[in-house]
C-alpha cells in the first residue's frame, strides 16, 4: 500500500456513513404507515416494538458472537428451554418468579459458558458446537417436561412480557418488554462500543492469532461473547413466555432470524465488525418486513421468499459497498 492511497481512503471515510439498515427501516415503516395509519398511534408502534423486543434482544446478543468470529445456533432452543423450564419450576406459584428468573438468566449464561468452552478447548467450530447444543437443549426441554410442560407461568413472571406501564406522558403507555428492550440493548451497545470487552471481541474476530500474541485473553473474551448471547436468549425467552405463555416450540427458528437481523445490521460473518445498534435496527427491519407483508395480506410462503431475497440483497449490497470503498 502506498501512502497516497491513504488520503483517498480518508476522503471516502469522512463521508457521512449512514448504515443502510436505517434507510431500509425508514422505508418499511413508511410503507406500514401507508397501509395502516393507525401505526402512528402509540398502540400501533408500541405493539410493534413489543413484538420486535425478543428478536432485537436476541440479535444484540448474537452480534457479539458473530463479531467474535462465530455463530450461535443454540439460542432458539435455549428460548424454548427457558420457557418450558420456567413453567416446570414456577409450577403455578407466583412467588417462585423471584428465584426462577435469576435462575433462568443463570442458565442462559451457563449454556453460553458451555458453548464457549467447547469452541475454545475442544476446538469444535462454533457452527457445529452450537448446532449440537441446539439439538441437545431441544431434547432437554422435552426431557424435562416429558413433552408437556407442567405448570402455568404465573402473572408475576409474565409481567415482563405482557404488562404495560400506563399513564406515561407523551406516549400514553409503554409495554414493560419495550423498557426491557431499551435497557438491554443500551447495556449491550455500551459494552460493545465503549468498553474493553467490545474492542477485544472485535479483535479476536478480526485476527485471533494477533489478539493472542498481543495478550488478549482470547478464550475468556470468546466465552464471554457466548455468555452474553446465552443471556440475551434467556431474556428473550422470559419476554416470549411472558407475552404468549407456555408452549413447546416457542424458540424454533429464532436462531436464524437473529443471525439475519445481525447481518442486516452489517455485522460481518466470520468476525471483526459488528454493531449492536445496527443489529437492533436489523431486528426492527425484519419485524417490519413481516408486519408489512401481513398488512399486505401476503401469505407465509411469500414472506419466506421476501426474507430470502432481502437477506441475499443486503449482504450483496454490503459486499459491493465494501469493494467500492476498498475497506
Amino acid at each position, binding site marked *: *500500500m502506498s*501512502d497516497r492511497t491513504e488520503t483517498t481512503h480518508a476522503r471516502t*471515510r469522512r463521508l457521512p456513513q449512514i448504515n443502510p439498515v436505517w434507510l431500509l427501516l425508514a422505508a418499511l415503516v413508511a410503507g406500514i404507515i401507508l397501509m395502516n395509519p393507525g401505526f402512528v398511534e402509540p398502540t400501533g408502534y408500541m405493539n410493534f416494538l413489543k413484538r420486535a423486543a425478543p428478536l432485537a434482544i436476541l440479535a444484540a446478543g448474537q452480534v457479539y458472537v458473530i463479531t467474535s468470529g462465530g455463530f450461535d445456533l443454540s439460542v432458539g432452543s435455549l428460548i424454548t428451554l427457558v420457557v418450558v423450564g420456567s413453567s416446570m419450576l414456577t409450577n403455578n406459584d407466583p412467588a417462585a418468579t423471584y428465584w426462577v428468573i435469576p435462575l433462568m438468566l443463570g442458565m442462559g449464561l451457563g449454556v453460553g459458558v458451555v458453548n464457549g468452552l467447547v469452541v475454545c478447548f475442544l476446538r469444535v467450530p462454533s457452527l457445529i458446537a452450537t448446532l449440537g447444543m441446539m439439538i441437545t437443549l431441544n431434547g432437554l426441554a422435552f426431557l424435562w417436561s416429558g413433552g408437556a410442560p407442567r405448570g402455568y407461568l404465573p402473572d408475576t413472571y409474565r409481567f415482563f412480557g405482557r404488562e404495560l406501564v400506563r399513564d406515561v406522558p407523551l406516549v400514553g403507555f409503554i409495554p414493560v418488554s419495550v423498557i426491557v428492550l431499551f435497557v438491554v440493548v443500551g447495556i449491550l451497545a455500551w459494552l460493545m462500543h465503549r468498553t474493553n470487552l467490545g474492542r*477485544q471481541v*472485535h479483535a479476536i474476530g478480526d*485476527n485471533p492469532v*494477533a489478539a493472542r*500474541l*498481543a495478550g488478549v485473553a482470547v478464550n475468556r473474551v470468546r466465552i464471554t461473547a457466548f455468555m452474553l448471547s446465552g443471556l440475551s436468549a434467556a431474556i428473550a425467552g422470559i419476554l416470549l413466555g411472558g407475552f404468549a405463555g407456555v408452549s413447546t416450540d416457542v424458540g424454533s427458528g429464532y436462531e436464524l432470524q437473529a443471525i439475519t437481523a445481525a447481518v442486516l445490521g452489517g455485522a*460481518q460473518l466470520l468476525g471483526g465488525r459488528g454493531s449492536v445498534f445496527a443489529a437492533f435496527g436489523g431486528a426492527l427491519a425484519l419485524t417490519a418486513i413481516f408486519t408489512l407483508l401481513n398488512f399486505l395480506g401476503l401469505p407465509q410462503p411469500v414472506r419466506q421468499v421476501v426474507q430470502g431475497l432481502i437477506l441475499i440483497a443486503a449482504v450483496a449490497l454490503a459486499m459491493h459497498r465494501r469493494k467500492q470503498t476498498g475497506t
Partner: protein
Amino acid sequence: MTTPVIEMKAITKTFPGVRALSDVSFDVRTGEVQALVGENGAGKSTLIKILSGVYQADSGAVLMNGKAVHFRHPVDSLRAGISTIYQEFSLLPERTVAQNLFLGREPRTRLGLIDAAKMRDETKEVLALFAAAGRIDPDRIVGELDVATQQVVEIAKAVSTGARVVVMDEPTAALNEAECEELFATVDTLRERGVAIIYITHRMREIARLADRVTVLKDGEVAARFDEVPAPNEIVRAMVGRDIADFYAPPASPDEVGGLVLSVRGGGNAVLDGIDLDVRRGEIVGLAGIQGAGRVALARALFGDAPFERGDVTLDGDAVSFGTPRAAILGGIGLLPGDRKSEGLVLMQSVRDNGMLTSRAFASLWSSDRRNAHSDTVRMDGLLDHMEIRAASYDQDIRALSGGNQQKAIVARWLSMRPKLLIFIEPTRGIDVNSKAGIYHLMRDLAREGAGILMISSDLPEVIGAADRVLVMQAGRIVAEFPHGASEQDVMHAATAESEVAA
C-alpha cells in the same frame, strides 16, 4: 546482447485516486538477471502484476520476442512462458509435492484421468535440478516440509512449467543465508539455461551477487537504469532520492548498558536445548542463524507461546516461567511478530485500537475502553504522533497504512506497556528503506530508555548493523557470539559450520 524477451513500453496504470505507474518502460533479455528495485509503493508489484496478467495496463504495450501480447489472466502469461513466484507461498499444504508442482496442468491419461505416475516422474526430474531438493519425495505432503524446502518447491514449480521468463518477488524474504546461497545457485543455473529472470529485492547484497542490470522505480516512474551493477549507495540514492548516512543507529556506549534484564540458563524444550542467554538493560541483542536453527522457537519459548520445558529463566532478577503469551506480557515481555498481517495486526480495526490492544487486554473487560492503567486514548494519540505515523486519522482502519506505519503502531502497542524485554522478529520485513531506518532508531531509543531488546532477523547485515551483540544459533542451541560490527563471513560460518560438517 540479444533482443529482449520481454519489453514493456510506456506502461501507465491508474487505480481509483492513485497513479501507480506512469510511462514506465522496462525490458529483460534471455540469460540475464534484471534486478527491479524501489521502495514499497514505488510500483514494482503493479508492474509485475501487469506483466503476469493480474492487472491490465491503461496504456502502453507489452512485447514478447518483439510481438505485442495481451495477458488478461495469470494463465495467459503462464502459457506464454512467464512464471511468477509471489512473496506469499502459493502452495497447498494439504497436497503432495507432485500435486503442487503440477497444479492446474496435471498430465492426463487417455481416459482423461490424472496420470499420477507421470506426474511423480517429472517431479523427480525437475527437483533434480536443485541440489537440496533431490531428496524430496514427490509424494510428501507439502505442509510437512519446512519453510525453506517449501520455498524450493515453490521455485521448482515455476521452473517446471518450462518458463522462459521467471519473476521472483523478494524470494529470500523467508530464507536464511545458507538457503539464500542455494537459491542464488539456482538462479545461476536458470540464467545459464537462458532463462530471463526479473528479480525484485530490497537487499543490495543480492543485487551485487546476482544482477546483470538494475532498474530502479520511484513513485511509479523509472528513476534510474543501470546497465552494470553500481555501488549500493547509488541505487539507494535513486530509490529514496538521497543518501542514508545514518542508516543504522549507533551502537550502545558502555555506560548505556545496564544490569541484567533477562537471563536463561539451560533452557530447552522439544526444539531448543542448553540455551544460556543474557540480555541487559539498554542493549540490543541480535539472533542470527539459518532456517530452523531455533531463533523463533527461542522467542516463542521466552514469550510463553511454546514454553521452555527445562532450565531456569530470570526476568529482572525474579525466577519466572511463562506458560502463555499473556503471562509473559504480564511479566514484562513484549513481542513484535514476524508476520504483521497474520500475527500482528487486527486489520479491520482502527490505528488507535491496534495501538491500545495490549493495554486494553490487561484492563477489566467491563471498564471503559478510553482509559486504563497503562494507557488512554490521549496518550496513545500522542505516542502515535511522536512516532510520526502517517495516517489520515487514527480512527481509520489500519489496513490502509503502509507496512512501516503499521509496524510503528504495533511498537506503540508495546510502548504503553513499558516492557522490560522487547522481542522483535523480522522487524523490517517488507518495509521500505526509509522506514527501515526509522525502525532501527526506534529500537535504539527503546533500549536507551532502559529496555532490553532481542532482535531476530534473517537479514544478516541488519543483525550485524543494528545489534550490540550477535548470538548465532544452530540446531536449537546458541553456538557463537559476536560483537557489533562483526564480519558477515564470520557470522555466516558460525551459523553453518557444523551443519556443513554433518552434511
